[in-house]
């Protein structure tokens, strides 16, 4: 009877309409309840981070200034023109979104969940475009002063959160958001000012574009996870799919002399790994996690063996695939900072954007997606309305494998132009974390992957300019962030109910 038991709380509708916040905030909590409910987790967590921030950005601040380079356009005229156009578009967007936001509030309706986020994003773009129009090439800020300001804001936010907790109220989302942004800005200023140069600076555009680039395999990996787990199959084999995709792309592209054939072969290779996973776990009901782990070990061993025997001996014939070059979309690619991210990508990069959108729309707005989600949530219910559960799962796992395989081709066709041993380096597991962090939602998974990519790129950028923190410590950043993100948020996200449970009819 568990299926029918009422659990009024803990709603995390995994549907497209609203995940997490919207519903949990929308629930009415009586004041008497609320007093006992609010946990001190948020207050204490923010407090600790604020103290850390104060020590780092304030007491340990550097006297040097920190510089952030904005424009590195190859053609200043094009860049400036692009900036003007962006400014106009962003201004229109901000006005429209702001109007909708205000009008919805005024009518007393709940504001659509995407509006605040979209408005903020548009405002950021507007600001960047304004900088581009003004021809600002570099922002230089005094690190000490700003560090202290950041510290004070952090302490204030943490204090406010504690105050609210004392009052028995929840900390609103914007406090957390503000805290995160200020902490990040403070951290960046502090770490850049600690560089070796007398006037250290980093390129913001480069940092962002690099973050997206590093995120590409993560995004493909996490999308693969979303596809499989939404249908109820845990895909731990993402790592193996990435690796075999990379290997196959390198070898096939070299042998055929065509990188596009290599790209397709990567998808096939990923799907092959999935085929084994699907057969063994869906048809023969072996524990999905064990199968996934075994596949990863198997593929790591197999590719390492082939690499050290065949590939190292005949690099010219087998391991020189050539590269997928970045394709500039004229004009748009010249927009400062955003241009390179969105419009100066390799084929794989563009495919990534397409995949995110297609999978999101597919899962939440089509017949196919409704059925897939039903299969992942309550396979028996899906079965009783005539949906073939195991076939749906099979197809999804295969598609997931193909997606992860394409992600793997990034390593050998975009990043570097040769396969090397274990070159996926655990990114399949990070992708899995990104999927959880992104709450089994393609867009969430995409954003989470970007975050991890950003941490990864920040780490290497900082190592280059020299930093007060040992580089080995900085190298932990993406992984530490993964742990914090998943541990801190995993309790609040709800996986598909039948995730990992094989379906046996009757």
């Amino acid at each position, binding site marked *: *009877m568990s*299926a*029918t*038991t*009422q*659990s*009024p*709380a*803990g*709603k*995390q*509708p*995994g*549907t497209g309409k609203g995940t997490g916040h919207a*519903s949990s905030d929308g629930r009415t*909590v009586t004041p008497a*309840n609320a007093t*006992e*409910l609010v946990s001190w987790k948020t207050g204490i967590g923010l407090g600790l981070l604020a103290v850390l921030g104060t020590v780092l950005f304030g007491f340990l601040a550097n006297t040097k200034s920190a510089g952030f380079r904005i424009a590195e356009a190859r053609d200043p005229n094009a860049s400036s023109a692009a900036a003007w156009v962006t400014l106009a578009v962003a201004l229109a967007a901000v006005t429209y979104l702001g109007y909708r936001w205000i009008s919805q509030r005024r009518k007393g309706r709940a504001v659509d969940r995407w509006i605040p986020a979209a408005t903020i994003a548009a405002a950021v773009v507007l600001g960047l475009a304004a900088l581009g129009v003004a021809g600002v090439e570099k922002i230089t800020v005094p690190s000490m002063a700003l560090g202290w300001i950041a510290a004070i804001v952090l302490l204030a936010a943490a204090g406010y959160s504690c105050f609210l907790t004392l009052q028995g109220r929840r900390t609103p989302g914007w406090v957390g958001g503000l805290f995160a942004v200020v902490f990040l800005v403070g951290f960046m200023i502090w770490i850049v000012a600690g560089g070796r140069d007398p006037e250290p600076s980093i390129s913001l555009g480069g940092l962002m574009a690099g973050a997206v680039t590093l995120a590409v395999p993560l995004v493909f990996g996490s999308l693969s996870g979303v596809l499989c787990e939404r249908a109820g199959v845990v895909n731990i084999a993402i790592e193996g799919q990435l690796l075999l995709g990379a290997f196959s792309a390198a070898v096939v592209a070299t042998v055929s002399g065509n990188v596009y054939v290599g790209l397709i072969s990567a998808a096939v290779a990923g799907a092959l790994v999935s085929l084994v996973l699907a057969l063994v776990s869906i048809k023969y009901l072996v524990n999905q996690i064990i199968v996934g782990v075994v596949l990863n070990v198997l593929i790591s061993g197999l590719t390492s063996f082939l690499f050290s025997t065949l590939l190292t001996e005949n690099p010219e014939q087998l391991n020189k695939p050539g590269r997928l070059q970045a394709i500039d979309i004229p004009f748009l690619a010249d927009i400062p900072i955003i241009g390179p991210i969105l419009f100066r990508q390799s084929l794989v990069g563009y495919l990534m954007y397409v995949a995110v959108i297609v999978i999101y*729309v597919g899962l939440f*707005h*089509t*017949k*196919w*997606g*409704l*059925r897939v*989600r*039903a299969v992942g*949530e*309550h396979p*028996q*219910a*899906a*079965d*009783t*309305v*005539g*949906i*073939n559960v195991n076939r749906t799962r099979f197809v999804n796992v295969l598609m997931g494998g193909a997606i992860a395989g394409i992600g793997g081709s990034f390593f050998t066709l975009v990043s570097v132009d040769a396969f090397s041993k274990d070159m996926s380096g655990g990114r399949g597991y990070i992708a899995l974390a990104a999927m959880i962090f992104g709450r089994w939602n393609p867009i969430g998974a995409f954003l989470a992957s970007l975050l991890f990519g950003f941490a990864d790129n920040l780490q290497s950028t900082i190592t280059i300019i020299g930093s007060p923190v040992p580089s080995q410590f900085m190298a932990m950043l993406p992984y530490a962030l993964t742990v914090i993100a998943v541990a801190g948020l995993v309790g609040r996200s*709800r996986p598909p*109910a039948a995730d990992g449970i094989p379906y046996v*009819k*009757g």
Partner: protein
Amino acid sequence: MKLELKGITKRFGSLVANDHIDLVVEPGQVHCLLGENGAGKSTLMNVLYGLYDPTEGEILVDGKPVVFKDPGEAMAAGIGMVHQHFMLIPVFSVAENVALGNETTKAAGLLNLGATREKIRRISDQYGFDVDPDAMVEDLPVGVQQRVEIIKALVRDAEVLILDEPTAVLTPQETDELLEIIRQLKRDGKSIVFISHKLREVKAISDTITVIRRGKVVGQADPTASPTELASAMVGRTVSLSLDKAPARAGEVTFKVRNLTVTDHNGQHVVDDLSFDIAKGEVLAIAGVQGNGQTELTEAILGVQPHVAGSITLDGKELLGKSVKHVLGAGVGFVPEDRTLDGLVGTFTISENMILDLYDKAPFARGVGMKSGVIAENAARKVEEFDVRTPSVSAAVGTLSGGNQQKVVLARELSRPLRLFIASQPTRGLDVGSIEFVHKRVIAERDHGTPVMIVSTELDEVMQLADRIAVLYRGRLVGIVPATTSRDMLGLMMAGVPAAEAEAGASAHADSGTTAAAVAETAGHEGETHV
């Protein structure tokens, strides 16, 4: 649409769940399948619905033989089913659930939920369902979820609607509403197959009754047959449906619950400020629809609920905040609501299950070792005493039938000198014989001078066992009333109506001569019976 089943046989290995069953469902008729738990009613319907392949036999629709390979085909043929455990996806909206498998789409496979919402509204208006197509299913009360299931079938143009134990999760009032809906569907020419083991409802709604026992059709019965006749047909022997018990001789109050509040991990108060007492030698029954805090209440007493406030005292000693071991040591016997999940370790033997809580105490243990001889001897004695039907005490408990498993749990819990006995859903899923046995044991424990707390969602059981009845609704105590309280009044209280209002409401209800009154009247005739 006329539906016929001819010689349907379904075997699972050596077990014959359905043995050459013949059944004819005429159009515009309510056909009841009456039988005990495990008689094979649900299996039969799952065969009809294409979930199981029949081992033998055939299904005829309007005289033509058909084969349903999966539920999709059964649905296409006009058969809809409302399962006992609803087949709804909790995180989907009503519209999404109704659309699933029968989607209306725009170009490129994009969902057109608008069309589905329209259909839901139309059916909702036609039958007076009050269902919002955009509500999340998990937010809806069980009764409304059931309507969503019915809508699912109607959207697919079902001509035959199978309802599998539809009232198991409903309050008496919701049951009345459901019966009214069934009558309306019947007027529209739909055929209904109504599966139940509850005599009252079966008598109130059916045109034809087919009684099934141990996988076989044992005969047709007339709706006018007396409850005892129906029960006897169902069980296969003359049954005494009444329980002889002496009036309670309540002694001093030894068990006190004060302001007990249990908060779940989401911060909801699942048990809200509960206070009650139980005296020695009396049975307090906790009534309520499933999911109104009963589980949490019993678990809080046992000490397995993490967020509790208030006070629970037994013989003047505080139990709240103590370990489970301490609580058991204080003399609390506990029969959990789900014996397979919390009561027994299925793969362990009967002997081992008999000492799950005593394994480390003399005479079963010496130092770190366990004395297998003593344990086996203990088990043999208990098996004898509690009439557990098993080939051997070293058989795995999971191989026993539900009734025998429950006897093992009872044997263990009643084998110690108790200061308080708690039994949650003590007879869920048991056959009539075992129910009789369990009830007698519970009353024996009461007469022994132990305070007894029974939690049950079966109103019949509550009324039969209780000396006083406490009704829970959404974790709050609606009221404590004497065992002689009428069904109607208890039903209203189970829906959250306070005792005083419920009393007024119940008498008005009875006067109005509605279906509910008819049902209540049947209940009156059946006062001494229970199945």
